[in-house]
């Protein structure tokens, strides 16, 4: 376990910069989640730390030491690939044992056996240990691929959307399990996901990447409650943050161009009138699609609301976000 630092990393693929002067400190024992759409540089960041790709400029430090000249094996990192990458000619057991048998670790057989047993129970794949890696479902492959990382005790775990192809229940189970393992062992994780529930529930830190730039880094709460830009604000929150021209409510600060409203920043029953366009009952909550001065808004209301299409609701912003014309936060 160690602190991992990315220092002014730039990586270009041809003309396009996959990473543009990214600096990030991943504290020892932290669970850092990288957010951003496809192409933002999340996977490239993982590959920089793993050593599979080398930065054009900048440096990666693990435990205070530069690893610039080190091969992936020497960095002692574990990685879960988005594409699983299980060795197809080996069984599940052999796949899990593969990193332990490496010249780097040379684990004794009894120890390998114990680790495999432990990890396969956590991941619920004990009954598949003697299957060929190719004779598994997508979800099982993904679990084996997570297991291949968990059998080790690396300086940092790198995970590239490890839960993306699991069904909802298993994903929820493994979310808790990963968090538990991390809390128990004090492991450091760098984790890429599209899923904001994963980001909110597991992360100690969230890094928001936009076109190769790290635009915000902080706790999930901080990113959610204090976003630096429209882009950052749009990464978290379900339903998404509503964006309207700043002038529609009045009281906007100078330079403000747009107002950002999360559902909890919209007070219902006071203020100006809006028109209910649609009501979506989701069970635990109800979503209101509102039309306010010809702008569309989505907010959340009581699960058992009596509101129906065509009703009038009064709304008022409560401590909203204001953004300038470049999308940066002004207040």
């Amino acid at each position, binding site marked *: 376990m160690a602190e991992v630092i990315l220092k002014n990393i730039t990586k270009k693929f041809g003309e396009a910069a996959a990473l543009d002067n990214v600096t990030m400190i991943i504290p020892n024992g932290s669970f850092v989640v990288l957010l951003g759409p496809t192409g933002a540089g999340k996977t490239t960041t993982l590959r920089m730390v*793993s*050593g*599979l790709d080398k930065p054009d400029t900048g440096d990666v430090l693990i435990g205070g030491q530069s690893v610039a000249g080190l*091969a*992936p*094996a020497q960095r*002692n*990192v*574990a*990685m879960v*690939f*988005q*594409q*699983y*990458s*299980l*060795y*197809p*000619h080996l069984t599940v057991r052999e796949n899990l044992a*593969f*990193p332990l048998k*490496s*010249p*780097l*670790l040379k684990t004794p057989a009894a120890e390998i056996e114990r680790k495999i047993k432990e990890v396969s129970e956590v991941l619920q794949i004990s009954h598949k240990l003697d299957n060929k*890696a*190719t004779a*598994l479902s*997508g979800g099982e*492959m993904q679990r084996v691929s997570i297991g*291949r990382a968990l059998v080790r005790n690396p300086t940092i775990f790198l995970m590239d959307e490890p839960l993306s*192809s699991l069904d909802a229940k298993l994903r929820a189970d493994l979310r808790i399990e990963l968090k538990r393992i991390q809390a128990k062992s004090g492991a450091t994780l760098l984790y890429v996901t599209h899923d904001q529930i994963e980001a909110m529930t597991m992360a100690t830190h969230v890094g928001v990447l936009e076109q190769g730039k790290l635009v915000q880094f902080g706790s999930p709460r901080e990113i959610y409650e204090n976003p630096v830009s429209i882009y950052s604000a749009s990464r978290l929150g379900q339903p998404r943050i509503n964006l309207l021209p700043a002038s529609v409510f009045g009281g906007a600060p100078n330079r403000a161009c747009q107002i950002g409203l999360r559902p909890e920043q919209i007070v219902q029953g006071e203020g100006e009138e809006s028109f209910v366009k649609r009501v979506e009952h989701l069970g635990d909550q109800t979503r209101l699609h509102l039309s306010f001065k010809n702008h569309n808004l989505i907010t959340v209301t009581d699960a058992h609301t009596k509101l129906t299409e065509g009703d009038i609701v009064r709304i008022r912003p409560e401590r909203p976000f204001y953004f300038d014309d470049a999308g940066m936060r002004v207040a």
Partner: protein
Amino acid sequence: MSSYSITEPSKRQKWAAGSFVIFYAVVTLMPLLWIIATGFKSPSDAIAYPPKVVFQPTLEGYVNLFTTRTRATPEMLVQAGEPKTWYDRIVRQYDMVIAGPSRYGERFLNSVIIGFGSTFFAIVLGTAAAYAFSRFRVPLKDDLLFFILSTRMMPPIAVAIPIFLMFRQLGLNDTHAGMILLYTAINLSLSVWLIHGFINEIPIEYEEAALIDGYTRFQAFYKVVLPQATTGIASTAIFCLIFAWNEYALAALLTSGTAQTAPPFIPTIIGTGGQDWPAVAAGATIFLLPVMIFTILLRKHLLRGITFGAVRK
């Protein structure tokens, strides 16, 4: 009501397909079977007209293939006494005695050394080159690959004279090393191109996973890439061996004694002691065996099928 499946062929279709396959097999195997049969005929049966399908089998052809014989005078025959072994007996029918072993064994061994040797080098070098072309940023990669292939754009025999002169200069004429070098060079383009294709099919993620799992690139290559490429490498090896094994023209030109392979030797059997077709057929039959055995041994790898599915595409 009878039901039928649109995917399962009907009984009649199966019969038609089966009959066609059997017919095709008989047509293609006929010359082979005829050679094998001829090897067990007596010389007179071999040239009988109409051709004999049923005949008294004899090992005469094989005895003649492996021995040299001399015609003996009656006094010599008496002096030699009763034939002691079964092959003595066969030879004695024609008032001949065995003078010694023929050169077939040596020539056959030459074929084995040169055929398998050149296949080994073509595969080892081809795999290394193909892996590099597939995984590393090789300067002028496409041009190099084209150049490698271009060596096969004319028949090898077209450059026989320059090769002959070069070999003479280098002292490689009629040597095992020379023939292995030559066949390796000719086969290399085939092996690089075929294996390159097979390695390209293997996603690079496996090696990346192995690198992360604590292995060096070379270890990742032989622990992860090689096992997955065996199917391709095995079939490439069969192609290389068949070429080197059957090559006649260059062998006839560049070898004459020490390193002569079986193909240029077999026709010469015919000249010693009349047209000995059974001996030629016996020579051809034995010559067929190694390639058949090699193919059967590697068939397991060929049929193992392509591994797929453990990387999400």
